[in-house]
């Protein structure tokens, strides 16, 4: 199968060996679970339980609201002891509405939907089961999976790509998942392909994971519609747009979805969750998390109930050898700084990475050399140095015109910058500012409409009053005469 090349990209040090060589461990039940109601892109879930309720494992705690949303389920059986604010796993450290669960240790499952032959289900039934199981994209973006399956009804999908790229350094949760659960992953892949009506399915895996490649090849051998593709290890291979280009040679136009060019991309972890949900009726209540980085004593992959505080994971892996300079949720390239270890693991958490000072490469910034390395590595063909100069000068609109909105926040530019400019940070700020301006613009338009509606209403009222007045006087005159 032909492989296409995307522009730019980098080859960061993988640092995957310390965690890739150990089998996935199971975390003992934590004392408390903190389950945020917003773990996905879209509307937060609405709680359905009260403080003091006893819930069973897999019972729905909060239902989805609106079209883009996902329900949340109890990761184990226990008692709801609080519904309120808790630190979100988000760089802002802001609180988020969270259900606190005290496990009873019995792990008693709620009665789940009976296991069925999943291939006897219709497309709509598959999508409904995926939605009810609360499955979101487990690669990190946490976009509700059922919405993506549904997009197949609006746009014909010819190619399904399963993302086993895992191009972020340190992360090996997908690697281990493919090695240990290839059969289930492939079944999930077939279910997604069925749900989308895709003609061909490609499981793309980077060549730095030979064991995973082999395991997936064996598991997929019996299914002629599925091919396992070895793709070169080059960051950001696991980014949706870059992977689509690598596999199909097609480029997703700026501002468009992959579905619009007939391609749908799902992560391998999502495929496994789909298999569990559709075949066994089990909702998404746990995930594999890579606990790694130089500051972790025994780095490894762990199956974790959703809502486990990061501190419990660190403790399970032997704690810190040195005080970490930075603790990240996700990989070191695109991961977010964890505001504190009390923040919980959520559906989109692929890793807890504690970096030492040497790994964090903190260096002071110098002036831009105009060397152009950032231009060479930008996978979407932007000119980061030009963008950065504009953003710094506060010329956000000019930056937007130069394509700021197409930036993936992959961090390749910041990685290669010899002057250590905080390029990724600048661009995150600029994109936030663009979003804020768009919001302000929307509000201004809304205000204009409301003010105009009020003016018309007042005019209509005045006219009605004026029309009534002479009528009343003539009436009076008539009765007098």
């Amino acid at each position, binding site marked *: 199968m032909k492989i296409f090349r995307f522009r730019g990209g980098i080859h960061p040090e993988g640092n995957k060996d310390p965690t890739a060589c150990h089998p996935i461990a199971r975390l003992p039940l934590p004392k408390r679970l903190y389950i945020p109601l*917003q773990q996905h892109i879209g509307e937060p879930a609405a709680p359905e339980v009260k403080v003091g309720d006893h819930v069973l494992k897999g019972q729905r705690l909060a239902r989805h609201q609106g079209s883009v949303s996902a329900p949340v389920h109890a990761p184990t059986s226990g008692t709801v002891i609080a519904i309120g604010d808790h630190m*979100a796993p*988000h*760089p*802002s450290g*802001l609180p*988020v509405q969270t259900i606190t669960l005290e496990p009873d240790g019995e792990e008693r499952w709620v009665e789940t939907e009976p296991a069925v032959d999943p291939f006897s289900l219709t497309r709509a039934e598959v999508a409904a089961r995926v939605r009810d199981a609360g499955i979101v994209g487990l690669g990190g973006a946490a976009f509700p999976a059922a919405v993506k399956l549904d997009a197949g009804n609006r746009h014909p999908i010819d190619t399904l790509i399963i993302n086993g790229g895992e191009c972020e350094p340190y992360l090996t949760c997908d690697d281990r998942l493919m090695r240990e659960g290839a059969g289930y992953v492939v079944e999930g892949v077939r279910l997604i392909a069925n749900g989308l009506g895709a003609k061909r399915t490609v499981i793309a895996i980077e060549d730095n994971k030979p064991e995973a490649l082999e395991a997936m090849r064996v598991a997929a051998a019996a299914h002629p519609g599925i091919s396992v593709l070895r793709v070169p290890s080059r960051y950001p291979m696991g980014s949706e747009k870059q992977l689509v280009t690598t596999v199909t040679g097609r480029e997703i136009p700026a501002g468009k979805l992959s579905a619009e060019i007939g391609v749908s991309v799902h992560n391998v972890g999502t495929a496994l969750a789909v298999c569990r949900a559709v075949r066994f009726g089990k909702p998404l209540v746990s995930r594999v998390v890579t606990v790694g980085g130089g500051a972790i004593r025994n780095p490894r992959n762990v199956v974790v109930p959703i809502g486990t505080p990061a501190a419990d994971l660190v403790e399970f892996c032997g704690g810190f050898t040195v005080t970490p300079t930075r603790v990240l949720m996700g990989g070191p390239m695109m991961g977010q700084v964890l505001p504190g270890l009390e923040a919980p693991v959520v559906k989109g958490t692929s890793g807890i990475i504690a970096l030492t000072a040497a790994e964090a490469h903190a260096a002071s910034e110098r002036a831009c050399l105009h060397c152009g390395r950032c231009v060479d590595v930008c996978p979407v063909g932007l000119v980061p140095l030009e963008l950065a100069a504009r953003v710094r000068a*506060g010329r956000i609109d000019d930056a937007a015109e130069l394509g700021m909105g197409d930036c993936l926040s992959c961090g390749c530019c910041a990685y290669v910058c010899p002057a250590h400019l*905080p390029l990724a*940070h*600048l661009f*995150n*700020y600029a994109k*936030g*500012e663009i*979003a*804020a*301006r768009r*919001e*302000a*613009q929307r*509000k*201004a338009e*809304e*205000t*204009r409409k*409301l*003010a*105009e*509606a*009020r003016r018309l*209403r007042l005019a209509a009222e005045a006219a009605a009053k004026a029309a009534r007045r002479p009528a009343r006087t003539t009436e009076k005159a008539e009765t007098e005469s």
Partner: protein
Amino acid sequence: MTMILSVAVVAALGLGLGWLLGLASQWLGATTDPVVERLTEALPGSQCGQCGYPGCGQAAIALSKGEAPVTLCPPGGRVVAEKLAEILGTTFDPGNLPDRGPLLARVRTDYCIGCSRCIKSCPTDAILGATKQLHVVLEEACIGCGACAEVCPTGGIDLEGIPVTLRNWRWHKPGVGHA
């Protein structure tokens, strides 16, 4: 000969069309100042009067004459000020602008007597309620202009900043404080 003819034709065409254009500008020309029009478009258009002018139109005229600073519009904030400065071709110092961020009006339930004065004063019809009933502010429609707070006889309307949540949180600019 041909050359002279073509030069003459082009010259005649130019003169003729130029004359037509001149006439058109006299008879069909824009009556309002295009700068004022663009300024009006950039302003929120809610006629809230916080700038001290009766409405956004008058504010735009004052701006075009240089009688008012581009930072005159409190609900518009920094974004509108930037746009106005761009239209007028001037610069402004964002440091001078008390950027308190957008505000929302909130009715204190225990102060509201249901007089409905705030409802009548609201430029965007963002307050709901009936006489002698508790009034409430529709957050989506409120522009935080404070007209309602001014007319409230019990002082029962507060203007509050919009709380920062995961949905509206943004990255701060590197090297400029922390959000």
